[in-house]
């Protein structure tokens, strides 16, 4: 703030004492001052976000219209070449398909599990519920890479799951879970559910805590059973939370990277690769350094996330 504005403020304040007419002016300057303070507090964060986030995003947008070696990038001809290219790229389309498969199968299962667990652990009669809550939440505190590696060793051909299944007679011989396209996808989905259910449960627990207990008591008096209470009280009242978790899960799944890289490396034969993994491969994998194309694909993911989130918000909009 410059000293000049400060001094004018001072003069204004002084002159205000005099007449009725000046009262209006005083009010305005107070709000103006508040606004100014507000903007002052906002500025550092805004500047940082602009430099650290928006500027790189803008640069990435420009890069997505370019092609060639990253030392000497030229505008692609035609300009949207990178964007049209991805739709004739079988591998990219497969990665989109895979990602959506994970999304469609995993997100509903995970959210249903989360809401049921939250409901159970919200019951006041359960003993040690704090302990159980922590246990369900704990997977979330593990690193993405380490949990993926643990799942990998569990499901390895000579791993624990195989030994158990062979011992109890379900399998005749060791099965290559991560080396067979179908089962590799299933393992990724199981891993995702294990990792993220507790995370979503916490949101539901918080949501449930906001529902008055008396509502449940009233329902009980009216003769509603557990199932009815769940569908007619819990779910409607949790709607905002459910929508939020949906958006977060969709966003997270569309950007799925670690599981694909660490569990299966996208294999066998690229059948489990995700969009982010393919983008990574195009920028840093195999010495390709195809940054223009990779940026274009990133923007495709960006648009997908935005569209899905918008649909979700629209569907969940309770206002008439």
């Amino acid at each position, binding site marked *: 703030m410059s000293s000049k504005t400060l001094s004018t403020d001072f003069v204004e304040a002084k002159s205000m004492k005099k007449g009725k007419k000046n009262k209006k002016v005083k009010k305005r300057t107070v709000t103006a001052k508040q606004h100014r303070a507000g903007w002052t507090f906002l500025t550092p964060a805004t500047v940082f976000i602009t430099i650290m986030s928006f500027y790189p995003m803008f640069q990435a947008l420009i890069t997505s219209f370019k092609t060639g070696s*990253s030392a000497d990038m030229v505008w692609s001809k035609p300009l949207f070449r990178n964007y049209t290219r991805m739709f004739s790229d079988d591998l990219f389309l497969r990665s989109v398909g895979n990602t959506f498969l994970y999304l469609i199968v995993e997100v509903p299962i995970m959210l249903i599990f989360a809401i049921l667990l939250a409901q159970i652990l919200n019951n006041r009669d359960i003993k040690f519920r704090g302990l159980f*809550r922590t246990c369900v939440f704990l997977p979330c505190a593990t690193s*993405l890479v380490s949990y993926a590696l643990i799942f990998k060793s569990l499901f390895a051909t000579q791993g624990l799951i195989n030994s158990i299944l062979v011992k109890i007679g379900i399998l005749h011989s060791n099965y290559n879970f991560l080396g067979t396209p179908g089962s590799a996808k299933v393992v990724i989905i199981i891993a995702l559910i294990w990792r993220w259910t507790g995370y979503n449960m916490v949101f539901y627990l918080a949501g449930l805590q906001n529902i008055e207990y008396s509502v449940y008591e009233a329902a009980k008096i009216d003769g509603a059973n557990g199932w009815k209470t769940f569908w007619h009280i819990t779910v409607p009242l949790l709607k905002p939370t459910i929508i939020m978790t949906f958006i977060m899960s969709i966003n997270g799944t569309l*950007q799925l990277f670690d599981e694909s890289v660490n569990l299966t490396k996208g*294999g066998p034969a690229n059948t489990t690769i995700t969009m982010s993994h393919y983008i990574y491969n195009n920028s840093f994998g195999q*010495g390709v350094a195809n940054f223009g194309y990779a940026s274009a694909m990133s923007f495709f993911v960006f648009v997908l996330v935005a569209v899905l989130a918008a649909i979700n918000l629209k569907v969940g909009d309770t206002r008439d």
Partner: protein
Amino acid sequence: MKKRKVMSVILTGAMVASSLAACSSGDAKGSTKKDSKKVTKVDVTKEDKNTLSVYAWDKNFNIPALKAAEKAYQKKNPKFKLNIIEQSQSSDVETAITTAGSAGDFTTLPDIVLFQDHYFQKYVTDYPKAWVDLEKSDVQWADFGQEKLSYSTIKNKHYGVPVDNGTVVCAYRTDLLKECGYTIDDLTGVTWDKFIEIGQKVHKKTGKYLLSMDGAGNDLPYMMLQAEGVSQFKDGKVNLTKNETLKKIIDKIVEMKQKDVLYLANDWSDYTDQTIIGDMVAGVMNGNWIIPTIKQVKKNEGKWEITSMPTLNGEEGYASNGGSSLYITSNCRKQDLAKDFLAYTFGGGEGKQETYDKALEDGGVITTCISAGKSDVYNKGVKYFGDQAIYSKIVEMGTHVKVVEQSDFHYVCREQVAAAIQNIINGTKTDAALKDAEKQVKFAMEK
């Protein structure tokens, strides 16, 4: 009440931890690789005039070789110092070049880098300003295996000085072969059909596979093709669908897999840890840098021997896979010193014998320098391989490797052919799978 407070503190803590984890997964596409990386910066401007800095990545393999070279060169220049900066993996060096090249600022690079051979062409094409050629140096080019030099020679200009040797060895467990009534000579200069026949017997009798490979980064097609003198590329274009030799080779690989001669692991660490160190195999075929891995199974000491590869028509096959060379970057301010150092040591100058002998003793690094491979150290029998003089044999085998067409897209192609093989094993027709692979490689090669 107090209990609840404690609980809430724990939960908040866990929340914060997880949200941090969630952030890291969302923000950077390459977070996993980058997190584990310890990037050691270098500033060449601050070095004194007798010091050179170099990036290398394997403290059991190429770093001892560089130390040997440093010591050898100190005889000529006692003040000389080599500042070896260890990277966690070879791709770190590639990323360093990519980053510097993209920014157009090479000041972050060291004087010399060790670089993977198969990647080098691509990096010269993409970042021509990052490198210094070695045309005006005293390196004895004629003293090296020509196949090795073909990787680091671009448009008839030499860029790199070879360090290690990628010559493919076929190592077999002689005790298991004997059990089945064979010797290693029965596997030398044979056809793949004979190899499969022996492999089947070995698996039936001992339960071990005669061959294993990483199914995702499958090096077999490349090595087997090179032994035939054929490449997956022709005149700069990918050559898969009309490549009859490749088709025959892929059929053999699929047959080996189906007849339990070949075990395809899910990834590289499974290949080394599970199949080789886990003692699942009676044979290993790969670049000779695989030898330290074989040696990790102490109980099999003295039971292995090496020989050349089988081929389609039964001649002895020779190929090369992997390996790296030393390159001077454009950030080097003491190019004369760097060139002299490389020429004197790895480049076949006066210090070559001392360098390569010590590199072999300390790091198991085998040379492609023909004259250096004739020393006593090289001719000594190796206990682990039944006192066979494997090192001189490898150097000798390296001179027979045929030069085949290389491409910037070697690894892209390798990945796609590996995927095609997986698909064929799962029931796709060979022609359809190869057509698909060729389409993908062509797609990646488009500008």
